[in-house]
């Protein structure tokens, strides 16, 4: 049985394949890192590392041609190659125990990285002093939210992700036979005064007497956010309920009635609601005496989880995040002349795997080098 397995895995256990994959990884990392200057870290990660192939768009068409392997392909082949090498050449001896432990750490690291890239969700919680929130917002993704506000104590939210927001797209909603039809959609827009339009025919969405949204190129800068704008029509049972122009830079919900119920519609950063509130009690931006050099940033927050009867204070500062309910809150930024804190909220169910895999690799190296050292010392003693 083991022989059969070894025969099957031998071709994919080739060391040449390992070298080719490592060389491809070298090229990918170099190109991806260089392109990060143009497209920012988030887009570079998606295009180069969280993809199976790199694509070249054919000018003038919607066609894209794959021209190189992406991170998932290279990492996946490396992982299979490494596992196959162990299966094909597996002969356990105590002399090689360290190498087996080290490689199992490496396999776990690769799997952990895959799980992190698939399941990790990062968002930001922006809190003014004294403000409490039970949601964080995505820095990269938006949503078209339709909120049924007719219940007295709670709202029902239908969140349409930005991947479905395309010109001409119609989306059936799983509630009250509602349907949303999209007219123009700008992934990034700027709000200007109508008098600033280059010509009346220039593409724009009218938001009101004083503001229109015009399409602008998507931004990839780390500290800038894309502000989408969309022309949206809502239907119920095929009958028009209303049509509005919405802009992310103008995130005040619009209220409408349909079928005797009251709804709101808003285009906003994607929200991740939590079953608890976080309130900012104090943000501190300490400086070294007599200078403007930052010494410390910290947020004193209060965490209130009524379901779990939690009500406690926590201080978030450099290397001291707040961990709660599978989420980690890091101090990430500040705004409003130090009156607003920005917390990075990270949900990563596989956060422990890198620690375990690094420990395994360290253990493997200690065992392997330790064995070499002891046999070397023994030989010297005998000599």
């Amino acid at each position: 049985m083991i022989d059969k397995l070894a025969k099957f895995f031998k071709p994919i256990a080739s060391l040449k394949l390992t070298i080719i994959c490592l060389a491809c990884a070298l090229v990918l990392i170099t190109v991806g890192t260089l392109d990060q200057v143009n497209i920012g870290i988030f887009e570079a990660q998606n295009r180069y590392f969280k993809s199976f192939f790199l694509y070249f768009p054919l000018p003038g068409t919607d066609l894209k041609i794959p021209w190189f392997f992406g991170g998932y392909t290279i990492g996946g082949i490396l992982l299979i190659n490494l596992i196959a090498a162990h299966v094909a050449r597996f002969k356990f001896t105590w002399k090689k125990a360290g190498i087996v432990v080290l490689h199992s750490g490496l396999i776990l690291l690769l799997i952990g990285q895959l799980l992190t890239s698939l399941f990790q969700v990062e968002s930001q919680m922006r809190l003014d002093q004294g403000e409490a929130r039970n949601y964080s917002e995505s820095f990269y993704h938006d949503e078209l939210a339709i909120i049924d506000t007719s219940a007295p104590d709670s709202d029902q939210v239908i969140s349409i992700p930005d991947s479905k927001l395309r010109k001409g797209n119609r989306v059936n909603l799983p509630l009250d036979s509602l349907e949303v039809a999209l007219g123009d959609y700008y992934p990034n827009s700027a709000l200007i005064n109508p008098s600033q339009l280059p010509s009346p025919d220039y593409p724009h969405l009218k938001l009101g007497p004083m503001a229109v949204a015009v399409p602008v190129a998507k931004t990839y800068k780390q500290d800038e956010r894309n502000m989408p704008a969309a022309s949206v029509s809502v239907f119920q049972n095929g009958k028009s309920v209303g049509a509005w122009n919405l802009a992310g830079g103008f995130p005040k919900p619009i209220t409408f009635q349909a079928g005797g119920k009251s709804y709101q519609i808003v285009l906003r950063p994607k929200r991740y609601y939590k079953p608890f509130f976080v309130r900012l009690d104090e943000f501190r931006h300490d400086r070294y005496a007599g200078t403007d050099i930052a010494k410390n940033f910290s947020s004193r927050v209060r965490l209130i989880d009524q379901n779990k009867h939690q009500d406690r204070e926590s201080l978030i500062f450099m290397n001291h995040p707040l961990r709660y309910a599978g989420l980690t809150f890091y101090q990430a930024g500040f705004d409003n002349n130090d009156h607003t804190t920005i917390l990075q909220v990270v949900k990563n169910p596989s956060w422990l795997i890198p620690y375990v895999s690094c420990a395994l690799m360290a253990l493997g190296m200690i065992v392997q080098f330790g064995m070499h050292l002891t046999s070397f010392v023994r030989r010297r003693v005998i000599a």
Partner: protein
Amino acid sequence: MITHFCALSRCAAHAPVGKSFRIAAALACRPANLALAVLLLSSCDQSKIQVYRIPKENVQVAMESGSSAIVPPPPSAPVKWTKPEGWEEQPLSEMRQGSFRASGPNGKTADISVVSFPGDAGGVESNVNRWRSQVQLPPLAGEAMGGAVQHLTANGKDALLVDVQTPNGAGKPARILGAILQTADRSWFVKMTGDPDFLESQKTRFLEFVQSFEFENTPPVAWEDGAPNTVKSTNDKQ
């Protein structure tokens, strides 16, 4: 294989979140399907329409200890003002955060609006010139612009005041009293339009109204400080 994958995708696309976890878990039992299951799970979050229930934003959250209660403040109302006597509140629109009407003798009225935009909303110059164009005045630039705006310093706030009216000989006489206030992340525009003589009688009330503005948590920024703040990372060099 392709049919298999499509069937799974359809299945997962129509299953509620809990169900898709069960499907994925069942699939994961067969090692060949493990990778597929992982990919299916990962695609659930970002590309699916989600329906969920949340407590109303203005619901009070009682603290576990003590008698104090916290109320998540409504993000859409970070400002307070005092309405002058004699002004009637008007229905708000999509753009207006505040809307009033002042009525005088002989059926004369003035319309007062409060609107706000993120950032500097195109800058002082373009906004003042927009008001000027509404009363048929030519645009100004540079030093001439400096002479056309006055600084208001009352209650520790810094605001710009603009008073423009149609030139002599223009069709229907009109006047605009406008004020621009800057908070850390937004620009606020208070505007009164109407008959020039009637606006003169309302000017004191208008100034009192502007001076009554109180911004919650976002103190107004002095104009001398330049552009409004941008978000800063704690990793930035200070």
